[in-house]
């Protein structure tokens, strides 16, 4: 196995990994261009390489892209990729108060550790985890999505009603298009584009990026000021110290990320949401979450990077891609004549292990490359005049939206959603619940319809929804996450009363 490790370390492969990570981070960091797009665009380039090198490039791009999403999430309040939505919760408030560099360094450390946890789980326990993932049926996905929705509500503390309304708007948007079951067209107004539904990335770009751009235009202040009183540079020492305080958090979030990533129909956005909510619940400073708590960034970034390794678990052991970029990478392997399937590990072990170690190397490379790029990105971002930043971001959002499906109508949908999102943000609605509603609505509806159909066919509808162990466990967590804030306030009141006595 050590030989495979050395294979991944050949100068050529190392150089490819460096290139992949850099390209991935750059594309992921640009608002409007996602990790999936980075992988898709660069895939044909790898067709001329030997299979294991091609895989290393693609995996490095993917890993870098997921991590790169945190740059714009922290600096511009715009997730560069859907899985960094949760990073905006605390990353942007930190940047706002002048701790942008610290937030970036912290996110880098958390991403590297989270990424490594995912890859190590892939290396060590892939087959049993893949089998466990298969136990997740439609009804479990339904409950998982419901859990996600309750988290959205409980995360919008102080603004519960607006959070719920936002999530409902997101659910409504997720209904647009042809129905999962029966293919009926809903809210498409005769448009062929809308019959395919509102693409999640289109909603993400519109609801996050455009309001930011409009806000930048409508205010005279500079977009971000260098706070002379704050320490400059990487602030790596501080970041390490903060991370040491979040030891349990980073490992728990990495674990959650890898496990959720291994589920073929869930992704980075839901895994980081669950990790974030767990981190907040167990934190002593939970009231700081959402206002720039370092623990929030750690949870979100550790989880979404762990999803990368986790997602490859079903891809490599079962031939079932765990995330959209996995599907593209799997196809690239087929072009190379490598047959994906249960025997991949035994028949093509040298490719698989070189790949896994390459992924590990890429993860570790993220540390120096990320810190360096982060430093320059932060400086450049502060230095760039607003008159260049705004048109630049706007151009990227339009290019990025067009690039998803080569469809100009989606650009208009994105812009329309952007204006709606801006108006809503003025009224105090944050975009995260809306976008998460769009993401989770699709998973929830599919799971519900499938579970209902299977339950009816086997005349066991209640057993389908309430009789399966994993479902019951998720339902338990849902009740806990809904009840906990109530319980906590009751306890606090009780405590205060006692103090008064």
């Amino acid at each position, binding site marked *: 196995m050590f030989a495979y490790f050395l294979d991944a370390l050949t100068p050529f492969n190392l150089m490819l990994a460096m290139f992949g990570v850099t390209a991935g981070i750059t594309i992921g960091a640009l608002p409007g261009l996602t990790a999936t797009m980075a992988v898709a665009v660069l895939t044909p380039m790898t067709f001329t390489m030997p299979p294991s090198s091609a895989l290393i490039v693609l995996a490095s791009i993917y890993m870098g892209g997921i991590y790169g999403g945190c740059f714009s999430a922290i600096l511009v309040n715009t997730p560069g990729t859907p899985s960094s939505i949760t990073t905006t919760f605390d990353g942007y408030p930190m940047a706002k108060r002048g701790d942008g560099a610290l937030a970036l360094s912290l996110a880098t450390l958390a991403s590297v550790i989270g990424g490594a946890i995912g890859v190590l789980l892939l290396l060590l326990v892939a087959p049993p985890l893949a089998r466990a993932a298969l136990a997740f*049926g439609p009804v479990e996905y339904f409950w998982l999505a419901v859990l996600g929705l309750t988290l959205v509500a409980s995360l919008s503390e102080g603004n519960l009603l607006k959070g719920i309304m936002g999530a409902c708007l997101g659910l409504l948007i997720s209904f647009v298009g042809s129905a999962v079951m029966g293919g009926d067209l809903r809210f498409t107004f005769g448009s*062929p584009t809308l*019959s395919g539904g509102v693409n999640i990335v289109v909603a993400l770009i519109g609801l996050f990026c455009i309001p930011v751009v409009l806000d930048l235009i409508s205010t005279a202040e500079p977009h971000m000021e260098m706070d002379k009183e704050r320490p400059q540079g990487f602030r790596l020492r501080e970041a390490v110290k903060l991370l040491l305080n979040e030891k349990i958090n980073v490992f728990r979030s990495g674990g959650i990320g890898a496990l959720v990533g291994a589920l073929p129909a869930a992704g980075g956005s839901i895994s980081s949401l669950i990790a974030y909510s767990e981190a907040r619940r167990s934190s002593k400073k939970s009231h700081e979450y959402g206002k720039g708590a370092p623990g929030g960034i750690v949870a979100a970034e550790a989880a979404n990077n762990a999803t990368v390794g986790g997602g490859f678990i079903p891809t490599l052991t079962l*031939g079932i891609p765990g995330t959209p970029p996995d*599907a593209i990478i799997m*196809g690239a392997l087929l072009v190379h004549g490598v047959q994906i399937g249960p025997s991949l590990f035994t028949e093509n072990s040298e490719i698989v292990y070189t790949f896994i170690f390459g992924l590990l190397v890429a993860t570790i490379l993220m540390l120096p490359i990320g810190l360096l790029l982060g430093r320059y990105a932060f400086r450049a971002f502060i230095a760039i005049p607003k008159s260049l930043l705004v048109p630049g971001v706007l151009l990227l959002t339009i290019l990025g939206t067009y690039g998803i499906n080569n469809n100009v109508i989606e650009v208009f949908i994105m812009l329309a959603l952007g204006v709606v999102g801006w108006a809503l943000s003025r009224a105090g609605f944050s975009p995260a619940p809306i976008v998460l509603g769009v993401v989770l609505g699709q998973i929830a509806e599919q799971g519900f319809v499938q579970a209902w159909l299977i339950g009816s066919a*086997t005349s066991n509808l209640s057993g389908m929804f309430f009789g399966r162990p994993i479902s019951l466990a998720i339902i338990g967590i849902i009740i806990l996450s809904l009840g906990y804030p109530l319980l906590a306030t009751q306890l606090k009141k009780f405590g205060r009363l006692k103090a008064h006595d």
Partner: protein
Amino acid sequence: MKSHKIKKLISGFTLALLAAGAQADYPERNINYYIPFNPGGESDVTARMQEEGFKEATGQGFTFQYKPGAGGATGLSQLNQMADDGYNIMGFNLPHLFLQPMSGDVGYETDDIEVVYVFQLTPHALIVPASSSIESLEDFVSRAKETPGALTVAGVGSNSAPHIAKEIFDDAASTTTTYIPFTGTSASTAAMLGKQVDAQWSFVTVGVEQEDNVRLLGVAMEERHPLFPDVPTFKEMGIDLVDGAYRGVAVPKTTPEEIKQELSSLFAEINKSPSFRQTMVDKGYVLIDVPYSEVPEFMERVGSDYKEAARLLGLVE
């Protein structure tokens, strides 16, 4: 007036000359091969395998371009706006080409797409996990008749190829099963492997990928698949279901006839290459040959089958 006519004549003549020249040397540069799906998909994999044979025959290669979106409709709706000089070709899938326009306005009609060659088929297959208690097609049919509707079968999408296969099968075998739509082959395969459903309607290629994890109950072919000599065809069981997903290439409608002919014979040649045949068969594909001259008849035949299937699905009256 006169000079204008002469000019017209001359330009017409030059054009004709140019056209003749183009055909003689066609292709004299790389051809743009548009894939209306993501890179790495089955259409892309096939196209890349074809490039070798194309190079051998012509000395030119393909430049691959991807135009994914709306299950291929985004690319196909742009095909006729491309230059018709023979240097733009696009892959397509059946039954998508028939079903998409039936389901609403997708930016093209079936007749708009000028097919020059249909080169392969991924046959439908009825698949169960290896540990399933359903041992054979007889088992499946008798279970489906015992408790109508209780057998659940996963497939990709509504009004899609697997959905059609399920409807035709139920119709022909007089069974009632419950179709559970999933988005994407991976979700559908995962549901079958995890026994969330009893079986899966998919393609022979899934059987090849999943190896010993699954058991094929039947394949929708005229004869048994060479990789699965023990798996019966539905026909053997008296169920008239011979179908799957077809792939081929199309060109902008106004591309010169000679070039269409030439492309057709080039793809025929690629399909004959023994090494190409071997790789495709190993992956579970079935090679077929529908040259340009036979396309109208082929489209007519499968088209009427799909119309019948669409009637079963309630898509058309």
